[in-house]
């Protein structure tokens, strides 16, 4: 009985996907229009995309930009957020700037960035960087601010300097919150990656998708949506695994894990 229940909860995400595909299949059959291929047609188009060298290079180029944009954003944003969280001066210096940038959709900056930096890798990576930075800074800031004062005092009594306390107490103590920001950042990286390629159409997964749309290859369009969606799910699940390992010591927040990990 118990094992049946575990089996059900384990396979629930897969089941949800299958139900979704089933609804799609049924809807497409009922509507029966060219611009809405069935789920099976879309899935059938996937191997030809992944088997094509040109497409593969495009997708890998997308992932590379995403990885660089995400990586650099994290390396800059975590220290900045932590320092803002522990120093009133740093916070009041950066806060106004961030408040202005925060609500602006980063893709809206793309035309200007393209104007200055061209349509190549640099412009697109920069947009991804901007998209990822803000949630990571914000969550690092919140996490650092919430660190218990007495914990820092305990460290100070052991002889840790202010810099050591930031790295060895504030950073680990804020890690659950920081990683929440990173997870949001990861999804935003994927979104900004595709939108940047949509605006600056030169290479990448977004480029394949919109070229196919222009040419009326709707099964390719939907196949690309599945591929991009699967990339998102895969990356998020991998990240959740990593996060779970890093913050095993902290309280679990949900009984139902909100991911595929």
């Amino acid at each position, binding site marked *: 009985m118990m094992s049946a229940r575990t089996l059900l909860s384990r396979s629930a995400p897969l089941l949800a996907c299958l139900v979704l595909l089933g609804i799609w299949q049924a809807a497409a059959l009922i509507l029966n229009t060219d611009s809405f291929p069935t789920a099976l047609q879309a899935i059938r188009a996937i191997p030809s995309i992944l088997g094509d060298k040109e497409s593969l290079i495009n997708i890998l180029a997308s992932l590379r930009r995403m990885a660089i944009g995400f990586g650099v954003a994290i390396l800059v944003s975590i220290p900045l957020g932590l320092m803002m969280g522990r120093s009133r001066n740093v916070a009041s210096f950066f806060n106004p700037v961030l408040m202005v940038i925060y609500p602006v959709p980063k893709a809206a900056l793309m035309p200007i960035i393209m104007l200055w930096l061209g349509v190549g890798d640099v412009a697109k990576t920069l947009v991804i960087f901007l998209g990822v930075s803000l949630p990571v800074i914000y969550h690092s800031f919140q996490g650092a601010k919430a660190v*218990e004062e*007495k*914990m820092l*005092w*305990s460290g*100070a*009594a*052991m*002889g*840790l300097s202010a810099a050591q306390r930031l790295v060895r*107490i504030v950073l*680990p*103590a804020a*890690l659950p919150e920081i990683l929440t920001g990173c997870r949001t950042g990861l999804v935003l990286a994927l979104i900004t990656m595709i939108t940047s390629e949509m605006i600056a159409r030169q290479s990448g997964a977004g480029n394949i998708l919109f070229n196919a749309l222009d040419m009326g290859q709707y099964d390719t369009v939907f196949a690309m949506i599945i591929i991009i969606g699967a990339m998102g799910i895969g990356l998020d699940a991998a990240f959740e695994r990593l996060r779970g390992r890093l*913050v*095993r*010591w*902290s*309280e679990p927040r949900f009984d139902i894990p909100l991911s595929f990990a």
Partner: protein
Amino acid sequence: MKVVRSDIPVEPARQPAIAMIEVDHVSQVFQTSARQDHLALSDISLTIEDGAFVSILGPSGCGKSTLLYIVGGFVKPTSGVAKVKGNAITGPGPDRGPVFQEFALFPWKSVLGNVMYGPRQQGVRREEAEAQSRRLIEMVGLKGFEHFYPKELSGGMKQRVALARTLAYHPSVLLMDEPFGALDAHTRTRLQNDLLNIWERDRKTVLFVTHSVEEAVFLSDKVVVMTRAPGRIKQIVDIGLPRPRRRAELLLDPRYQKYVVDIERLIDDTGEEELRP
């Protein structure tokens, strides 16, 4: 009796009244949100001898914790000076080890990791720090819990870890800020007993903040009774109860009962009779 001078230092008969902590005319003013000054501590002077167990007792908001934070170096006094072993306190240091009501353990470290943290920071080799920490964990009664994370422990266990973590770096003074305040009555009693037993071994100087009269009398050599805001020292009561103290005997001891009643009256400000030291 005459003291015979000798070149050999006499070990047990310590020179009396070596001041471990001196608090000299310390006042503390806080700015409240309404931009009004709030006098938390007013002209406190206090000397704590080496090896003494001293409690600071007072109603909440009397600044007793603030006084402890000043000795810890966590809070700078508005005026006056606090000294440890004759040196003015300018910040926290491993000679003064705090134990907080909130435990303040490092949640990402195991019990062992928490206790080893101080020695490792002091440059003690890993194997040595670990062996020493394991002994301390056993001493506070947590053998078998070395690899548990703080979130897996009860409040009483967490405070035992916090005590072991502080003892691990050998502070000269233990600064205990209402350490048992967040615990249930039963756990509290057990921790008081265990703290006394541990303290009897090396008789470290302890500054212990509490609002429980019984706790203060049971544990201390001296009880510093403070007044409500602004915090002033109302009276210092010497607790002349023999050591080692056993709870069962002490609770029946009329002297203990008298100390408790007298100090309670002192706090209530209704006591008319003179307090006998």
